[in-house]
């Protein structure tokens, strides 16, 4: 399997894990280790001055995974930009996952706020990973402002409805020149494999692992699924095998034949 490259960095896994909803920092750490994920995302929040902080940064750094902050909690572009700059300070990385989902029922990403925040952050030197709806034109616009990757959703966050947006995802994958990371809504390892079989560069999953009966085992299942999906993609699915594409002599022949 060839390696994933995001923002110029070669990564050994096509799985990105979110860190929310785990029972404990220890369980999170074990799940991340079991998943083989090379990148994990995390949020930035005001410190609870009275409460105890369950430090995740330290343990995750020990695992050697790359930490990618996100702007979750931001209600508009301005807040997202602010969160991104804070995160850059906090972690010392210029990677940022822009996510702006003000609607509390479905947590669907606000396309305009996402676009505006991404544009500003790219100008500010960030490597932007834009979480967005599965809208091919939006993804094209985000690519044009210089994001490092687009992260279109498979279905609403936490819904486990899988690749509902498969049709659009397929178009995005076909047209995109930046990596496409399918994010949100993946509920089962088979869906993760499916996303990679379709040609997605990577996929992100959180709830499906964290809320599983045995998160560490589920993380391992996702690890295997990601490997299966990508290997299958590289092997060339029978329905789209190389021999189903016309050779150049054939192309020329058909051009002539159609005159």
């Amino acid at each position, binding site marked *: 399997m060839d390696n994933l490259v995001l923002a110029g960095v070669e990564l050994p896994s096509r799985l990105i894990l979110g860190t929310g909803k785990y029972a404990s920092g220890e369980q999170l750490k074990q799940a991340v280790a079991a998943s083989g994920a090379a990148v994990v995302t995390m949020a930035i929040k005001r*410190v609870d001055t009275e409460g105890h902080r369950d430090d995740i940064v330290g343990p995750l750094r020990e695992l050697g995974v790359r930490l990618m902050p996100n702007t*979750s909690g931001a209600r508009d572009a301005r807040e997202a930009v602010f969160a991104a700059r804070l995160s850059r*300070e906090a972690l010392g990385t210029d990677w940022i996952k822009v*996510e702006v989902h003000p609607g509390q029922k479905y947590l669907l990403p606000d396309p305009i706020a996402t676009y505006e925040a991404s544009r500003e952050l790219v100008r500010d030197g960030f490597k932007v990973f834009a979480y967005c709806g599965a809208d091919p034109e939006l993804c094209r616009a985000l690519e044009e402002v210089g994001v490092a990757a687009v992260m279109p959703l498979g279905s609403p966050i936490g819904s486990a409805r899988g690749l509902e947006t498969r049709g659009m995802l397929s178009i995005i994958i076909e047209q995109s020149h930046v990596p496409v990371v399918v994010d949100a809504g993946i509920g089962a390892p088979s869906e993760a494999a499916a996303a990679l079989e379709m040609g997605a560069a990577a996929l992100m999953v959180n709830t499906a692992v964290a809320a599983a009966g045995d998160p560490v085992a589920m993380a391992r299942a996702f690890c295997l699924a990601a490997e299966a999906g990508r290997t299958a993609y590289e092997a060339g699915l029978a329905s789209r095998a190389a021999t189903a594409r016309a050779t150049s002599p054939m192309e020329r022949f058909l051009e002539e034949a159609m005159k």
Partner: protein
Amino acid sequence: MRIVCNGKAREVADGLTLGALVDSLGQGREGVAAAVNSAIVRRADWDATALRDGDEVEVFSMVAGG
């Protein structure tokens, strides 16, 4: 002097540095960011940044989630 830290009013020593304030929160400095009056202060400058009366300080840390 009086400052506001994460929305809560506090009495602190005059000339308290941002670095000292962050340390006092017991969260360490790793994965932490701070802003004074909505302006983010780089970690390298925390110890050199003296807080003034009425400053609004926001201290953030990386948490699981998103």
